[in-house]
C-alpha cells in the first residue's frame, strides 16, 4: 500500500463514501416532497450533518490525522455554530410579538 492509500484507505473507500453522499442527497430531495414542518427540517439537517461528517472524515482525511488536530479544530467550530442558535428568540419576537409565544 502506497503512502496515499495508507492515508485514505484507498479508492474503494472513496467510491463507497461518494456513493453514500450521493444517496443521501437523493434522499433529501425525496424528503423535500414527502415531509413538512419541523420534522422535515430536523431530518434534512441530520442528513446534511451526516454528509459533512463523511466528507471531513474520509475526503479531508481527518480520520488519519492526529487526534489533537481534530480536538483543536472541530469542537470549537461546533461550539461557535451552536451558540448562533441564540438568534432564534429574536426571530420569534419579530414574527409573534414576543419570544417563544404561540
Amino acid at each position: 500500500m502506497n503512502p496515499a492509500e495508507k492515508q485514505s484507505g484507498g479508492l474503494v473507500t472513496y467510491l463507497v463514501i461518494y456513493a453514500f453522499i450521493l444517496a443521501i442527497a437523493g434522499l433529501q430531495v425525496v424528503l423535500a416532497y414527502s415531509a413538512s414542518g419541523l420534522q422535515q427540517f430536523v431530518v434534512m439537517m441530520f442528513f446534511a450533518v451526516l454528509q459533512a461528517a463523511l466528507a471531513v472524515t474520509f475526503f479531508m482525511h481527518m480520520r488519519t490525522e492526529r487526534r489533537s488536530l481534530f480536538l483543536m479544530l472541530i469542537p470549537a467550530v461546533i461550539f461557535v455554530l451552536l451558540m448562533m442558535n441564540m438568534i432564534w428568540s429574536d426571530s420569534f419576537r419579530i414574527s409573534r410579538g414576543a419570544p417563544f409565544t404561540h
Partner: protein
Amino acid sequence: MSQAEVRMGEQATGVMEGSPFAIPSKKLVMWLFIISDSVTFGALLYGYGYLRHASPDWPHYFRFSPSIINVMVMSFVLITSSLTMLIGVQAAKSGDKSKAIRWAFITVAGGLLFAVLHIREWTGLIKEGLRPSGNPWGSSLFGAAFFGITGMHLLHVLIGVVAITVVTLRYQRGRYNSDDLEVWGLYWHFVDLVWMFVVPLVYLLNVAR
C-alpha cells in the same frame, strides 16, 4: 562556548522545531482558514434562517423542473469533482504526475460546469423577476438572502477553480509538490461541504408544491 554560538544554537532549535500536529504548516493554515470560513457560512445560513422564520410571506418558489433538477445535477457535478480531486491527490502522492495533473484538471472542469449551471439558474430566476431588492412572489428579503448565500458559494467555487489551475500548472513545472495539491484539495472538499448545507436550507425547504 561563545555567546554567538549559543544564540545560533537557539535559532537552529527554533528552525528545527517539529511541525504542529505532524502536518505541513500550509496544511494547518488551510485547516484554520476552513474553520474560519465555515463560521462565515454558518453566520450567513443562520442569518438566512432568521429572515425566513421572521417573514410570514417567505416564497416557496423552487419548482421540481427546472430548479430542483438543476440543483440535483449541480450537486452531482460538485460531489463528483471532489472524488476526481481525491484521485488526483492520490496519484500525486504515488508519484504519478501525469495522472495527478489529468484528474486535477478534470476537477477544474467540474468546477467550471458547476459555475455555468449556477449562472444559468440565476439568469432564469432574474428573467422571472427575482432581484436582490425584491421579487414578485413574497418577502423582498428572499432575493438578497438567495443571491448572498449562493453568490458567496459561487465565489468560493471560482476561487477554487483558479487556485487548483495555478497549483496544478506549477506542480506540472515542478515548482509545487503533492502537498500543495492536497492542501487545495482540502479547500475543494470544503466548498463541496458547504453546498451540502446550502441545498437543503435554500432550495429543498422552499420547494413549490
